[in-house]
C-alpha cells in the first residue's frame, strides 16, 4: 500500500469508543474518598456526600425507577400540599424517587439567601462610625466569619469564636474564646447576643480507606447543625443561653431585626423500611416534625431532600423556635428578602442518567429552576407559592425582590448557552421575560438595582447589559457595553454608577480567552443606553492573581462617604526569565502563569471624579524569606480575608492577626495576634522532589521541595 493510502487508512480507521460506567463511578468514588482531600475539605466533602448517600440508599432500597423524560417546559404555579399522613409521605417518596446520578459539577448545594422587598443594602447610607458586613439587602444581615459592633470584633477561626476588644486600637486585645466541637460556619452579632452557627460532620470510616474490608452498605450519618446563642454582655465571659440542633447540612442564614433564619437541608433516606423525618432539638428536647406538617410541591425530581427553615428569636430565649419544612428535590439556591425566603432548585443537570445508566447528553437536558416562596414575619413562616423558570441561577445576586415582583437572571446551557431575565409576580407566575441574551456566553455576575438589572455575560469578551425592568411585563435591554475581561461581582456605587470586580482577559479565539490579573472597573450607567467605563480599569498583578471578592462578596469593603474600597488580593507575577525571547519571539505568552508574590489588602480611594486611586497596601505576611515564601501567600493563616473600619481605623483580619492602620494614611497603629492553629507551608509530602515525571513543560525545575513539614 502506498504511504499516502496507508495514512488515509489509519486516519479513517474506526476505533473502539467503549465506556465502562461502573469503573468510572467506582474510581471516582475512590479518588474523592482518598486522603488527599480529607484534611482540608472534610466539610465540603461531607456536604457533597450526604445527598449522594441518601440517593443511593433510596436506590438500593426503593429500587430502580426509570427516569421519566420530561414533557415540554412550562411556567407557572405548581401545586403545594401538605401530607395527610406519614404513610402518604412514605408512599410519595417511594414512588417519586427515581434514580439520579448525582451531578458533581452541581454539588455546591449552597442555597443563596437573598433579601427582597427592602432597599438595596449598598445604597443605604451608613450612619454608624463603623462598617458592617457587605450584604445584599439592607436590613437583612448575612452570617460571616467577622463581625463588628463598632467596639468589638467577633471572628471565627476553625472551631473557635474569638471576641476582641478592637477600639480604641491602642488597647486592642483578645477578650475571650469560645471553643466548640464542630466547625463554626458563621456568626451574627445583635446587641449583647452572639449567634454562632456550628456544623458537626460525621467521620465516615472510609475516609481512611483501610485495607480491603468486607463488603458493607454505607450507613448514612447525617451532619449535625447547631445554632448557639450566647449572652456577651460580659465580653470576657460569654454565656451560652440557648442551643438548637438539627440534622442536615447548613445551607444559608439571615438575620432580620431580632430573628435569625437558618436554612438546613437533610436528605430523605430510608433505613429499616422507615423514611426519616426532620428533627429539631431545643435544649434537651428533640421534636420530630410530623409528616402532616411537611409541605411538598408536585415538581418532579429524582430524589428528595427536606429543606427546613428555622426561625429563632435572638433576644427572647423563652420563645420556642418555629420552622417550616418542605420536601423538595436535589441541590438548591436561595434568596431571602425582608418578607420572603425564595428557595430555588435546579431541576435538571446534564449528568442525569437515562434509564440504563447512559449519561444524558446536554442537548437533551432541559435545565429548569423551581422557585418556592416562603413568607416570613418574625417567627411566622408560611409556604405560599411555587413556580418554575428555564435555566440555572448563578448565585444570590442573580435574584431580587422589588416592588412586589421577584426578578431572576438565569443561564441555559446546552449546545449554545443562553441567558434570560424573568420577572415573576408574588404567585411566582412569570409576568415578563427577556430571553436568549448573549448566545454562547454565560452569566458571570448580575445585580438588580431598583427598576434595573445589570448582567455581565462572558465567553471571550465581557458585555455589560443594562436591562430595564420597570415594566414587569416587558423587560427590555437599554444598553450594552463590550470590554475585555469580565466582572464576577457587581456593586452599586450609587444610583448611576457600578463597581465591577473580575479579571482582565486576553482573547485567544472567538470562544476562548486567557484570564489575566484582577480587574476593577467603574461603570457610568447614568446614560442607560450608553453605559461606559470611567477611565481605565485598575488591573492588579498578572495571570494567577486572585481575590476572594470574586466568589465571596463579604470580603468586599466599600464606603462611599469615605471614598473607601478595600479588597483582599493574592498577587501573582510572571517570571519573565522562563519565557526567553529565543523561545518566545512574540514575548511572554498570554497563557503564562504567574507565581504568588504578595497577599494582603489593597486599599483604594474611589470617587466618580478621580476614579480609582491606590491609597496603599497592607499585608500580614512579613519577614518570611524561606524558599516556601510563595506558599505563605496562599491560604496561610497570614492571608488577609476581611477588612473593616471603626472610626478612622482600618482593621485587616487574617486568621493569624488583626492589624490596625490609620484610614487616612495607612500608618501602622497596632496589631493583635490571634490564636490560630500552627501552619506548615502547604502539604508537600516529605522529601518529594519535583523532578518526577511529568517533567518537561509541566514543571520547570527539578528542585527538592522542603521536606519533613508534615
Amino acid at each position, binding site marked *: 500500500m502506498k504511504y499516502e493510502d496507508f495514512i488515509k487508512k489509519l486516519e479513517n480507521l474506526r476505533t*473502539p469508543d467503549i465506556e465502562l460506567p461502573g469503573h468510572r463511578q467506582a474510581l471516582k468514588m475512590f479518588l474523592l474518598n482518598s486522603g488527599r482531600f480529607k484534611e482540608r475539605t472534610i466539610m465540603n466533602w461531607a456536604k457533597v456526600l450526604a445527598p449522594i448517600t441518601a440517593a443511593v440508599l433510596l436506590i438500593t432500597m426503593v429500587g430502580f425507577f426509570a427516569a421519566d423524560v420530561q414533557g415540554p417546559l412550562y411556567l407557572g404555579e405548581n401545586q403545594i400540599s401538605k401530607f395527610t399522613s406519614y404513610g402518604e409521605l412514605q408512599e410519595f417518596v417511594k414512588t417519586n424517587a427515581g434514580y439520579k446520578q448525582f451531578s458533581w459539577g452541581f454539588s455546591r448545594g449552597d442555597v443563596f439567601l437573598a433579601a427582597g422587598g427592602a432597599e438595596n443594602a449598598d445604597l443605604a447610607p451608613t450612619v454608624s462610625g463603623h462598617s458592617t458586613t457587605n450584604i445584599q439587602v439592607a436590613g437583612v444581615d448575612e452570617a460571616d466569619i467577622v463581625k463588628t459592633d463598632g467596639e468589638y470584633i467577633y471572628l471565627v477561626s476553625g472551631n473557635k469564636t474569638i471576641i476582641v476588644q478592637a477600639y480604641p486600637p491602642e488597647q486592642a486585645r483578645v477578650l475571650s474564646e469560645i471553643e466548640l466541637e464542630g466547625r463554626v460556619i458563621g456568626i451574627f452579632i445583635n446587641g449583647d447576643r452572639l449567634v454562632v452557627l456550628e456544623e458537626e460532620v460525621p467521620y465516615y470510616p472510609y475516609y481512611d480507606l483501610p485495607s480491603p474490608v468486607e463488603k458493607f452498605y454505607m450507613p448514612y450519618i447525617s451532619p449535625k447543625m447547631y445554632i448557639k446563642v450566647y449572652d456577651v454582655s460580659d465580653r470576657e465571659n460569654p454565656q451560652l443561653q440557648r442551643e438548637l440542633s438539627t440534622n442536615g447540612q447548613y445551607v444559608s442564614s439571615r438575620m432580620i431585626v431580632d430573628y435569625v433564619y437558618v436554612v438546613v437541608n437533610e436528605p430523605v433516606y430510608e433505613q429499616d423500611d422507615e423514611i426519616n423525618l426532620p428533627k429539631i432539638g431545643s435544649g434537651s428536647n428533640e421534636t420530630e416534625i410530623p409528616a402532616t406538617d411537611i409541605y411538598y410541591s408536585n415538581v418532579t425530581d429524582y430524589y428528595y431532600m427536606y429543606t427546613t427553615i428555622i426561625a429563632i428569636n435572638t433576644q427572647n430565649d423563652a420563645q420556642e423556635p418555629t420552622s417550616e419544612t418542605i420536601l423538595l428535590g436535589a441541590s438548591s439556591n436561595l434568596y431571602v428578602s425582608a418578607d420572603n425566603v425564595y428557595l430555588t432548585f435546579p431541576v435538571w443537570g446534564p449528568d442525569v442518567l437515562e434509564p440504563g445508566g447512559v449519561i444524558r447528553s446536554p442537548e437533551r437536558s432541559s435545565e429548569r429552576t423551581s422557585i418556592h416562596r416562603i413568607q416570613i414575619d418574625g417567627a411566622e413562616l408560611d409556604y405560599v407559592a411555587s413556580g418554575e423558570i428555564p435555566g440555572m441561577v448563578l448565585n444570590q445576586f442573580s435574584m431580587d425582590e422589588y416592588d412586589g415582583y421577584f426578578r431572576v437572571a438565569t443561564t441555559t446551557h446546552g449546545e449554545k448557552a443562553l441567558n434570560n431575565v424573568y420577572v415573576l409576580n408574588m404567585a411566582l407566575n412569570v409576568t415578563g421575560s427577556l430571553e436568549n441574551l448573549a448566545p454562547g456566553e454565560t452569566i458571570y455576575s448580575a445585580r438588580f438595582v431598583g427598576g434595573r438589572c445589570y448582567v455581565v455575560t462572558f465567553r471571550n469578551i465581557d458585555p455589560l447589559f443594562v436591562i430595564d425592568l420597570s415594566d414587569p411585563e416587558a423587560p427590555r435591554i437599554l444598553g450594552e457595553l463590550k470590554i475585555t475581561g469580565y466582572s464576577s461581582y457587581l456593586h452599586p456605587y450609587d444610583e448611576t454608577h457600578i463597581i465591577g470586580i473580575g479579571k482582565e482577559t486576553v482573547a485567544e479565539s472567538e470562544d476562548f480567552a486567557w484570564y489575566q490579573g484582577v480587574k476593577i472597573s467603574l461603570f457610568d450607567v447614568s446614560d442607560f443606553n450608553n453605559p461606559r467605563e470611567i477611565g481605565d480599569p485598575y488591573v492588579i498583578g498578572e495571570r494567577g492573581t486572585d481575590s476572594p471578592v470574586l466568589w465571596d462578596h463579604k470580603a468586599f469593603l466599600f464606603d462611599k462617604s469615605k471614598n473607601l474600597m478595600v479588597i483582599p488580593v493574592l498577587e501573582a507575577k510572571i517570571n519573565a526569565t522562563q519565557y526567553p525571547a529565543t523561545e518566545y519571539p512574540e514575548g511572554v505568552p498570554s497563557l503564562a502563569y504567574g507565581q504568588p508574590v504578595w497577599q494582603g489588602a489593597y486599599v483604594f480611594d474611589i470617587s466618580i471624579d478621580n476614579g480609582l486611586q491606590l491609597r496603599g497596601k497592607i499585608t500580614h505576611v512579613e519577614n518570611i524569606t524561606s524558599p516556601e515564601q510563595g506558599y505563605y501567600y496562599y491560604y496561610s493563616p497570614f492571608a488577609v480575608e476581611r477588612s473593616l473600619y471603626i472610626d478612622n481605623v482600618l482593621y485587616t483580619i487574617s486568621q493569624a492577626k488583626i492589624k490596625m492602620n490609620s484610614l487616612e494614611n495607612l500608618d501602622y497603629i497596632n496589631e493583635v495576634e490571634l490564636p490560630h492553629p500552627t501552619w506548615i507551608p502547604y502539604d508537600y509530602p516529605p522529601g518529594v522532589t519535583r523532578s518526577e515525571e511529568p517533567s518537561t513543560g509541566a514543571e520547570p525545575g527539578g528542585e527538592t521541595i522542603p521536606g519533613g513539614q508534615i
Partner: protein
Amino acid sequence: MLVFLLADMDLSEEEELVKRAQRDRDAFARLYDQYYPRIFGYVLRRSANLEAAQDITSETFLKALGKLWQFQWRNVSFSSWLYKIATNEINQYFRKAEYKKSVSLEELQERGFELLSPHDPENELIEAQEKLKQHQDFLEIQGKIARLPAKYQEVIALRFFEKRQIKEIAEILGKREGTIKSLLHRAVEKLREMD
C-alpha cells in the same frame, strides 16, 4: 462558583478548576468527569485490553491527583498533562513483567463502592468485550502497532486514534514538533512494512 454546567468547559474555566481541584473535591470531580472518557479511550486504544485499560486509567488518575499540585498552567495544557501521565503508565505497564498497581478494580469493589453504582462490573466488562471484538480492523492493526517500539506506538496512537495535533503530541511527549513529525513518519513506514 462552579455551577456552570457546560458539556465542554472552556479553557479559562478549566484553568480555574485545575487550580481549585488541588483542594476542592467538587472541582476535581468535574475534571475527572471531563477527562475520564478521553483517558480511558486512549488507554484502551493503546492496549486493546479492557482490564489493562481499567488498571492504567485508575493509576493515571491516582497519579494525577497526587501530582496535581505540581501541575502549573505554563507550556502544557491540563489535557496534555493527563495524556502524558497516561502514556508513561502505559509504557510502564508493558515494560514490567508485573505491573505494580496501587489499586485494582477488585479492590475498589471490595471496599463496597460497587454498591453505590447501578452497574454490574462483570456484566459491564463482558458487554464491553463483545463491543471491542466488533472492531476487527482496529484490532488487527493494533496488534501490529503493539509490536513497534513504544516511541512509535505513542505517536501513532495520539495522531491517528486520538486525533491530536502535532503541537499537542509534542506537548504530551515533551519533544519538539520536528521530532514528532519524523517519529511519525518513521512509525508509519515501519507499520506499512508490516502490513
